[in-house]
């Protein structure tokens, strides 16, 4: 328990971090936070020192609604879940500091987010495409890539 409260105290020390009110059970998370991108490395360090792992890292294309990309980090510890979802909002086209120095897994996760959504990570040792073919010049998970959902639904027999 002391570990969790220590974590809360450390997180509270980060100025730009905003924690949402207790998330409901459906979200699958115990803590939801938003943080400015300059502080994400600090947040990562806090979680690493508390023994958390970087469970998931991905990005969301929110350019239609907010002209921004959301980078979503999810930290969890081993054992009874204490899942924290940390969100960084970046204006489209701008970079986020990389966590690759803190977590080994961030290396590939960030490459994937770059490949799929074109989010760049500053300080990443080897930010190249990971999944798509060589020489690809697109970021497939962007909403303006590919077809409109309605057309696909029709084709899928929808």
């Amino acid at each position, binding site marked *: 328990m002391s570990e969790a409260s220590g974590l809360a105290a450390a997180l509270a020390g980060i100025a730009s971090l905003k924690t949402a009110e207790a998330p409901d059970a459906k979200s699958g998370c115990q803590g939801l936070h938003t943080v400015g991108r300059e502080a994400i490395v600090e947040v990562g360090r806090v979680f690493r020192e508390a023994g958390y792992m970087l469970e998931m890292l991905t990005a969301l294309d929110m350019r239609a609604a907010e002209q921004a990309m959301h980078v979503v980090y999810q930290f969890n510890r081993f054992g009874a879940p204490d899942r924290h979802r940390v969100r960084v909002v970046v204006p489209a086209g701008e970079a986020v500091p990389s966590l690759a120095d803190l977590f080994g897994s961030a290396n590939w996760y960030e490459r994937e987010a770059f490949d799929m959504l074109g989010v760049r990570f500053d300080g990443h040792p080897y930010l190249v495409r990971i999944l*798509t*073919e*060589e020489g690809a010049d*697109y970021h*497939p998970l962007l909403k303006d*890539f*590919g*077809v409109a959902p309605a*057309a*696909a639904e029709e*084709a*899928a027999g929808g």
Partner: protein
Amino acid sequence: MKETPPPPANATTEELLTQLGPLVHLDVLENLLNQARARSLWPLTFGLACCAIEMMAAGASRFDMDRFGSGVFRPSARQADVMILAGTISRKMGPVVKALWDQMPSPKWAIAMGGCTIDGGPFKYPGQYAIVEGADKIIPVDVYIPGCPPRPEALINGLLMLEQKIKAGKKFHV
């Protein structure tokens, strides 16, 4: 056999062969060879996705593809003569598949196993960016086996069809 002018005295073996062509043209022999080829197909050990597991199942104890002389999976393309394309060919994999096909010595055949290698299967939709929609876009395919994944019996049936095709030789009609 028609008469050919004698080759120059200093010709290399290779030139000799090119000039003369196959020394003997015997339909009977060709047929005999085809009979042999059809009954000992050596597939390439090459799995791409889910269908590969069914290919393994077909080669394992219950279905035992060896009964039809085609259980000798060769890991090297240079020793194989049939390529079973088992699984989705992604765009990244496409050139590799082509390279493997080119490495296989003739005569060689290809079997497209599963919906993915026929036309993209379950992954076909407008705007699909990641896969090659159909193996026949990159290499010539002899037998198509539908299914997702096809059952091992279907793969065996496909191999038997390939055998028929090989045995029939030039007389094969679709």
